[in-house]
């Protein structure tokens, strides 16, 4: 059932690979105009090539979400090019394996938090105003079951993903009544990666 996102404008962070890439593909198939945001330029360009869509319907934004200035520019350029912003998918994240807590290096903690949590905060912070101005919008924050149950191989990642869930709940309470929905899909009960990717899109 294509066309569910006709005329919608979306930013997908982490669009240069993995879940972000297939989200871009699905969004374009559903009729959306998509900004493929990633700090990996070649990955983002590869995604754009896969989309087989014209320049009028897609754009690449090379952005480090940990940098607020770059995120603000990404949102401004999106609104400038497409006239509005309807959907933000926060898919950008890093997973660094770390030893148990006592041996975790502060530098690894900061690197993970800056991308996974502060970066997501930046994207919400700058995406919400144009959504509010437009009267509606949707934000999909991609968390992880590690944010619910924890994983032994990366404490910073698990904590960052738990933070994503909580940020989403609080922000949803603050903005849902203004027309900006905010949901956090994570993998509980999803039998396969393919299904999980589908559910992320369906949850919008």
């Amino acid at each position: 059932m294509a066309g569910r996102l006709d005329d919608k404008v979306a930013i997908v962070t982490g669009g240069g690979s993995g879940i972000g890439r297939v989200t871009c593909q699905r969004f374009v198939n559903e009729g959306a105009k998509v900004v493929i945001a990633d700090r990996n330029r070649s990955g983002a360009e590869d995604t754009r090539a896969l989309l087989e869509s014209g320049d009028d319907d897609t754009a690449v934004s090379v952005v480090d979400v940990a940098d607020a200035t770059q995120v603000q520019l990404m949102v401004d350029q999106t609104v400038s090019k497409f006239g509005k912003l309807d959907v933000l998918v926060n898919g950008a994240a890093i997973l660094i394996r770390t030893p148990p807590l006592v041996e975790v290096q502060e530098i690894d903690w900061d690197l993970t938090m800056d991308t996974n949590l502060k970066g997501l905060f930046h994207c919400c912070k700058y995406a919400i105003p144009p959504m509010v101005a437009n009267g509606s919008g949707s934000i999909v924050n991609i968390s992880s079951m590690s944010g619910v149950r924890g994983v032994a191989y990366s404490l910073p990642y698990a904590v960052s993903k738990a933070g994503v869930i909580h940020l989403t709940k609080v922000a949803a309470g603050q903005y849902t009544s203004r027309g900006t929905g905010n949901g956090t899909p994570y993998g509980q009960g999803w039998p396969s990666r393919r299904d999980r990717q589908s559910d992320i899109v369906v949850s919008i």
Partner: protein
Amino acid sequence: MDKVIEITNRAVADYGFRQAVLYGSADIARRWGLTGPEQEALEGMAVELLSALPIPVPPEDVAVEQSRLEALIRATR
């Protein structure tokens, strides 16, 4: 150059960390407090070598690849 080797070794063993190095090498250099020549080595040769590795490096090949990359990086300095 020890910090560059340390970063490269981790990037060989951990694909998540490798992505952070490949697409944010300037950020990694800043966080690790690399000197100018160290940053140059990381952003140049180390990134080039890491880009060519399989995803991920099979566990049985990690030590061999770490040694190979270390030798190449040290040989160019």
